[in-house]
């Protein structure tokens, strides 16, 4: 089934709260080799002017992907993960994410563009505090190959 272009423009209701934990940030920092002490040491983070340990700049993808699951996990959307390639990613941080944050994400399907046998699907995750203060935006573009194996390349 091809990607359903009727999903373009959708906005999903806010997902459940994501509670940012120190040990999760340490685990992620270890995984990407982020050695800076502000990711692990609360004293170092406070000395740098932050309330608690900081997430590495791409950690927001963990939160965004949970929100994206509402869309890509919907069979009606027609996004077959065996034919998906990650094309583009962009993070905009209104402020760094830190341990103790309780974050709520609203997912938007911004566009679905057909191009040379590919469907370019762009989603936008708006991450905010529970009271609605914007924290980060994650824009992700997936390239989905058509069902015909000759169509993609």
């Amino acid at each position, binding site marked *: 089934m091809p990607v359903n272009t009727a999903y373009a423009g959708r906005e999903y209701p806010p997902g459940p709260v994501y509670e940012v934990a120190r040990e999760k940030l340490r685990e992620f920092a270890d995984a990407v080799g982020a050695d800076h002490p502000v990711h692990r040491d609360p004293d170092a983070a406070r000395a*740098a002017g932050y309330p608690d340990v900081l997430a*590495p700049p791409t950690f927001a993808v963990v939160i965004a992907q949970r929100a994206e699951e509402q869309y890509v996990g919907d069979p009606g959307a027609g996004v077959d993960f065996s034919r998906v390639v990650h094309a583009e990613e962009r*993070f905009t941080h209104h402020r760094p994410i830190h341990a103790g944050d309780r974050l709520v994400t609203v997912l938007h399907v911004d566009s679905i563009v057909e191009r040379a046998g590919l469907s370019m699907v762009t989603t936008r995750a708006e991450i905010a505090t529970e009271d609605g203060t914007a924290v980060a935006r994650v824009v992700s573009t997936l390239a989905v190959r058509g069902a015909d194996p000759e169509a993609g390349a």
Partner: protein
Amino acid sequence: MTGRAPRLAELAVGDVIGTRTVEVDRARLVRYAGASGDFNPIHWNERVAVGVGLPGVIAHGMFTMGAAIGLVGDWAGDPGAVVDYQTRFARPVLVPDPGSSLIEVSGVVGAVDPESGTVRVDLAVTSDGSRVLAKCQAVVRLA
């Protein structure tokens, strides 16, 4: 960390911020899968990767993107100074077993914006001689 943080007024377009080499093996990909929650088997299972037409297991694009930005955060003296970070995924990084692949990261100042108090760092990220991330740019807030 070495030296003091860079200052906006002392930077010019073309200044080199540094270089870094990231080594990636299958264990590193499994670690990233667990930490990120991205368990797509093309990043750890050769059979599945080949089955979907890839030459073999490839690194998560988000692993490469996440590993590359460390250079910028360390240079700035504060990873929290990265206010915007984007890339296109140009080519996958093939990760052999046994063995490992190397990802080479280098950064130059691409723009200085005194109005907003930010600089744009342009990252060149290559593996095996080919660029793997394209238009890889980070905007950093500096004093």
